């Protein structure tokens, strides 16, 4: 009987401990990685305010979802994936907005795409933005965050072999877009 009576109390204790650990862990992740994640989002969406919103959403989701994380050590991978998901949503919303915009209104001068166009006039950045989403994400994770294939695979939930193939395809596509023969450049 004592055991049955004590079980709800123990569950409550565990829940409280989980919430406390979650808050501390989220705080820690924020302190460690907020800037890095904002920059990642900025690279993906091109607009600082939007990037900040995306990262804010990601941290809120992380806090809410912390008790469900199987491995607390995977918090960074979770929030990184969440940021990438948020960036995809931004692009989807922008695409929908463009589709439904009044035809006579002309191109929108606000939002991430406009900011992107204003800020990223570089040929390489423009070529990167024209890549398919998966290639763009893999290249950013590889060449901006310096993640290796295994870490990228964990973040995007794809196989490491797919990561390597996608990196190669993305670089080749960039080279084509820039009019370069990447194959001859590779050592």
């Amino acid at each position: 009987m004592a055991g049955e009576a004590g079980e709800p109390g123990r569950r409550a204790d565990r829940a409280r401990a989980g919430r406390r650990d979650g808050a501390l862990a989220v705080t820690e992740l924020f302190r460690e990685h907020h800037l890095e994640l904002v920059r990642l989002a900025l690279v993906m969406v091109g607009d600082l305010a939007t990037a900040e919103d995306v990262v804010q959403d990601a941290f809120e989701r992380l806090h809410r979802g912390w008790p469900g994380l199987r491995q607390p050590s995977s918090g960074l991978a979770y929030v990184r994936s969440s940021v990438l998901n948020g960036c995809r949503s931004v692009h989807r919303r922008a695409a929908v907005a463009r589709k439904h915009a009044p035809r006579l209104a002309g191109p929108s001068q606000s939002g991430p795409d406009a900011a992107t166009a204003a800020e990223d006039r570089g040929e390489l950045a423009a070529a990167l933005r024209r890549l398919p989403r998966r290639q763009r994400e893999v290249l950013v994770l590889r060449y901006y965050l310096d993640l290796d294939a295994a870490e990228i695979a964990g973040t995007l939930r794809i196989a490491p072999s797919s990561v390597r193939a996608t990196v190669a395809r993305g670089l080749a596509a960039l080279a084509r877009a820039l009019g370069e023969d990447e194959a001859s450049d590779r050592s």
Partner: protein
Amino acid sequence: MTDLEQRLRDELQKISERADPGSIRPLRVRPARGHRRLARWLTPVAAVAAVLAVIGGVYLAGHTPGRASHPPKRPSARLTAPPPGPAAPDVMPPYYVVVQEGPGYPLVPAAVVRSSRTGKVLASVRLPKVGPASSLAISAAADDRTVLITDGNDLFLLRLTAGGRPAGLSRLPLSLAAGVPPGPTRFSVPVSAALSPDGRTVALEGQSSCGPVSVSKGVGVLGCRDNAIRLVSLVTGASRTWSMRALWQPGIWISWDGNDHVLFSWAAASKSGPQASGYRLLNVAGPGSDLLAARRLPLAPLPVDTGASYTQSAFVTPDGSAVVESTFGPVGPNGGTTVSVVELSARTGRLVRVLLEESIARTDLSVLFKNEGCSVLAIGPGGVHALVECTTLTRTVFGRVDDGRFTRLPGLPYLGSSATATAAW
């Protein structure tokens, strides 16, 4: 790395730097959008956002003193360092070099040069050989362009251009074994090496004739009878040795000031009674060869290494006026740990300032500096900006400590527990 890859890396870095630490806002509580849904989750989110916002303020203030829009606040229960002193001159070394092998980038053992301000990879030089993981060591000359790398056996000299690009990696005709003094038994502990500020001389410390001395609180105490510091000129090959015979615990730390002095720490290993310890400053421009003739500094004795509380590392500042040491040990009646990095006057032994102090409750499972604590790896040539490595059971983080704040070095992904790395500037 191809030209395209390097350009891509540079372009992404350039885009990302539009988000500088002084311009991004901390997390905030969003305005209400739906009453019933909001009521369900706003409270916990608001609580954590408030905590994060405070920490965000500290974070931003740490990166851009004087620019933060909110006054810097500390989470009072977490950091106990005193208020920052007068602003230190900004002489942060331009680069930091990480020698790393492990699961992260780079996959092969390499010395990676990064910009201290942006974290951008300036160079990645593959090392010909890296020995036992625990023996990786690195030290930099004052110009931040000459770096000594040791792998537990061989020594390499990495030279950088003014832009941080590699100008050459050479294996020195010298091994760490040269630092081990002769003795009746050759059992020795890993030797450490430090490059002089002018990059022309290597100091090697070595201990031999080591063996178990006693057991203290369940932890065996090792003692080494032969102890030495040897200087080798990288220009002429000439060497000079200071030695002494006494039972010292292994693991003395050495570092140079800018005036021909080498700081070393020592701790006696006795079978019973108090175990003396302290710091000495060896004048390598002076006469003699007796290590014990080195000037003893009036600093508080180092905690004896019992496995639970000890000085992890100590560096003398370039002007020789202070010693920056990192320690950790148990604290409080309920257990827990305190991690500290302090600056002590070399003349009086008094505390100059606390660079970092963190108390960690035993039950706190999510903190950064859990068990292993922090080690000072280098001091910037201006005497500020201590380069610090903080290690937990699962990760290693490099950062700088100044004005009471730990600021993670930018760019370096956090390293898992299986990675082996050390850094210098």
